[in-house]
């Protein structure tokens, strides 16, 4: 794994890029997941 990257900078470009993409996906994912979990709650509150 270490052989891919000669510098800390290159390593961070790669890993931080992956992290941001994951964050974007997870924001939408968690929202969807939360809606799924609370989808059949008895009390339906508008707010």
């Amino acid at each position, binding site marked *: 794994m270490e052989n891919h990257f000669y510098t800390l900078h290159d390593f*961070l470009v790669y890993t*931080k*890029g992956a992290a*941001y993409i994951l964050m974007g996906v997870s*924001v939408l994912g968690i*929202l969807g997941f939360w809606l799924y979990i609370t989808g059949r709650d008895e009390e339906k509150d*508008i*707010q």
Partner: protein
Amino acid sequence: MNTENPAAKNSLLTPFNVVIGIIFLLGALITFLRFTKGLAGVTNLSDNNPWGVWISFDLLCGVALAAGGYTTSAACYVFGLKRYHSAVRPAILTAFLGYALVVFALHYDVGRPWRLPYPFFVQSGTTSVLFEVGLCVFLYLVTLFVEWTPAALEWLGFKKYRNIIVRGTMALTIFGVVLSTMHQSSLGALYLIVPSKLHPLWYSSYIPIFFFISSIAAGLSMVIFEGTLSHHFLHHKMDRTYLSEHNDVVLGFSKGASLVLACYFLLKVVGVALDNKWHYLLTGYGAWFLVELLGFVALPCFLYAITVREKNLALAKWASVLTVLGIVLNRFNVSWFAFNWQLPPADRYFPSWMEIAISIYIVTIGVLLFRFISTKMPIFYEHPEYREHAPHEGEEEESAHFTEHKLHKHPQTFGH
């Protein structure tokens, strides 16, 4: 100010309008100079001092002082403190305008403003703290805009769209708090990369925490401060709900601000202790650090505490002013006064009058937009069709008069 006689020739030339006019004229002139002579023709920026008052004030202070948006909406919607509900819309409006103007100010500061979207759409520097700041500010601006639209939609009468957006309030609020946490702290993190340039009393690996915690205090204080100003100048736009909740807001936010400031004070002291920087306190910069910490953090903390104990709302006004000034001072210290502290005095930076003029111009735009929107749209009052509170006695007739209010002249309203 003569505002009562519309027949007078100079009814448009009130002192206020003249000042505004001068500010706008200067703004236009300096804008022209900026884009014909470059930054050199307008600013005192140099290779040693690449960031000046447009970053220190317009960006750092602008973002910190717009923190009222996320703190108020979090208090009301996430923590369920419904009695603060009437303070949410003014806070969101302040924050939205604040962030929009930060982006506007950046168009003056960066070398190629039309490339501002590049980090998101062309090539991303994901190792950069500035990337994270930019991304969060961009997303948060969109969030704030969406949070503001119900007021505009109510004014325009688009019930269906307004209701759709209101249903997303909780998600928007939470998203806003998350984004705010990240970029408030990241603005501090910008300076993590320069331990050699920032004075040790302000440099700490905890800068991100300091910036975040102080932004909470700034947000709460700005709501109190802005409420005080709005009471003075926009009183006629406020409905009974807002007015009756106002005291609760001031007291509750004062309590919160006092605790947050106490926490911030302790964290700053811990920061000094952990890096063993006590000896710096005995220097000139140390004295300045103590001025910031004691006069603008500890003092307003106590004033807020007394406000709450004695239920003295007038004191909250002063505490909020001190807190806001303290945040401004802290951002100035980190980005300007304590930055490049080792450079010889001749190489230090001081803004040109044109830089200051542009900053004033930008704030003026914000104030005017705030006044326009809050007088035309349901910010300080609830639109009768979307009322969440049962109308108070006499409010039914009042609300019918709201659209007639243009003729109502509060003695201290600005003239037209």
